């Protein structure tokens, strides 16, 4: 028996090896790449370029603004929907939630093609507002799902207690429901914010390259004509820091009901 448990642990080794090689090592490569010249010598110039050439920092700030606006809009639209659905009886709500998250499984390029056709049809210019529309459209389901999970798991007796104690409708909402759904809110925010800042598909398709956010810039620095992979690596590190920060915040508020991406199945 003892010998066998040792054997079974061995099952994990191919994947551990794989993770070291193709999940951890790529991140190390990015770290190393940020400190390297084209000839492989050590340099800090990529960092100084990032911080001094104006474009990168300005763009980072612009992207954070776009990400912030998108996230807030998703929250404003998504929260009432999730709240309403969490009050419905579960089988009906299940179907409607399904309708909201179904588009998550349709390729992002196709959804954005649809958005582009739609915007052209209503005569909208391709620009910042088109991009924000596309972003909200794309990421709204990622906001609704965790909010719904969190709100429908909320113990209804808290609301009843608040009402019994004389709280008005808005007091119940702001003092009971919203504070209790903070884990869902935080999880929704992280699921929208990071992908928004790091996208390049939506911006390029909906603005013909006029709106450039951080994801576009990384894409450009790695594959474009003026490619500088060192600066691109610095930008990837910045992106990675954003990811880590948002996950630290997420873990602080975590509850087990927060679904992982792809929670549909």
């Amino acid at each position: 028996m003892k010998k066998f448990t040792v054997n079974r642990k061995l099952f994990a080794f191919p994947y551990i090896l794989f993770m070291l090689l193709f999940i951890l090592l790529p991140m190390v490569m990015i770290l190393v790449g940020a400190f390297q010249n084209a000839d492989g010598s050590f340099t800090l110039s990529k960092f100084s370029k990032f911080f001094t050439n104006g474009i990168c920092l300005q763009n980072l700030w612009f992207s954070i603004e776009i990400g912030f606006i998108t996230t807030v809009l998703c929250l404003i639209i998504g929260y009432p929907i999730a709240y309403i659905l969490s009050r419905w009886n579960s089988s009906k709500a299940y179907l409607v939630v399904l309708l909201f998250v179904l588009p998550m499984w349709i390729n992002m390029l196709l959804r954005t093609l649809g958005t582009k056709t739609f915007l052209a049809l209503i005569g909208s210019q391709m620009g910042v507002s088109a991009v924000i529309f596309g972003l909200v459209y794309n990421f709204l389901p990622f906001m609704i799902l965790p909010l719904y999970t969190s709100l429908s798991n909320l113990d209804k007796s808290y609301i009843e207690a608040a009402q019994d104690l004389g709280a008005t409708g808005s007091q119940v909402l702001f003092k009971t429901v919203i504070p209790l759904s903070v884990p869902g809110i935080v999880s929704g925010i992280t699921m929208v914010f990071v992908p928004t800042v790091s996208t390049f598909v939506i911006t390029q398709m909906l603005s013909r390259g006029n709106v450039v956010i951080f994801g576009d810039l990384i894409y450009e620095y790695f594959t474009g004509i003026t490619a500088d992979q060192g600066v691109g690596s610095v930008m990837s590190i910045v992106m990675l820091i954003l990811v880590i920060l948002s996950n630290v915040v997420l873990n602080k508020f975590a509850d087990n009901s927060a679904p992982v991406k792809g929670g549909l199945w």
Partner: protein
Amino acid sequence: MKKTLSVCFVVLALTFIYAPLLVLFIFSFTDSSVFGQWNGFSLQPYAEIFTGSRSGRIFTAVSNTFLLAIISTAISTVLGTLAAIGIFNMRSKTRKLLSNANQLPIINAEIVTAVGLMVLFASLLGIKSGWLTLIIGHVSFCTPYVFLSVMPRLYQMDPNVYEAALDLGATPTKALRKVLIPMIKPGIISGAILAFTISLDDFVITIFNNGSVETLSTYIWSDSKRGGIDPTTKALSVVLFIIVLVVLILVNIKKSKTNPKEI
């Protein structure tokens, strides 16, 4: 009144979600390469998927996409299932550490994962972008999902059943094959389905590591970056989209029958 208002809001939001998809559907039935322009009803775009000048390229892209998804799913299902069994049997500290490492590709920004792999292949390993880099890339983001769907099954399993099999004289291999694997099979299957859909759907990892291999995503991307769009691309989008929708509905009907509370 309040009820009506909330129903209205939900309906409005659903309209917002589905309007662009509906518009794409409608405009796939017109032979125009300008976004939002209607040139009269036509089935030409659909016919051209099979007979037009691009049909060869489309066929290659479709078969590449599916081949890639099948290979990546097969590898990641085996890799992820074995890893889950192995890591499940480790001490809780190691288990936690490795489970967290498994989360990295899920929480990381896709573009960072993609760029990291690209740099690794190009500068350290010297592998040219192509099938190999694509498969490795896809396995790297599919396996975590397989792992995540198998792990809960292992936790739910009654360990006594497995030990009973051993006590009754089954060899460890036989107990594994006849008892353990069947018990976690639902997790393995849903992990594999998940891996398959994610691989089919992927664009970001693919575009950085595909070399000259064209998949559906990269095909649509190269076409839609221009000002206009080929009518066949719209028709193709609708076809794909209906396939996805039908599969999703079937899977969810099956799932809601067996497990109505879970989404």
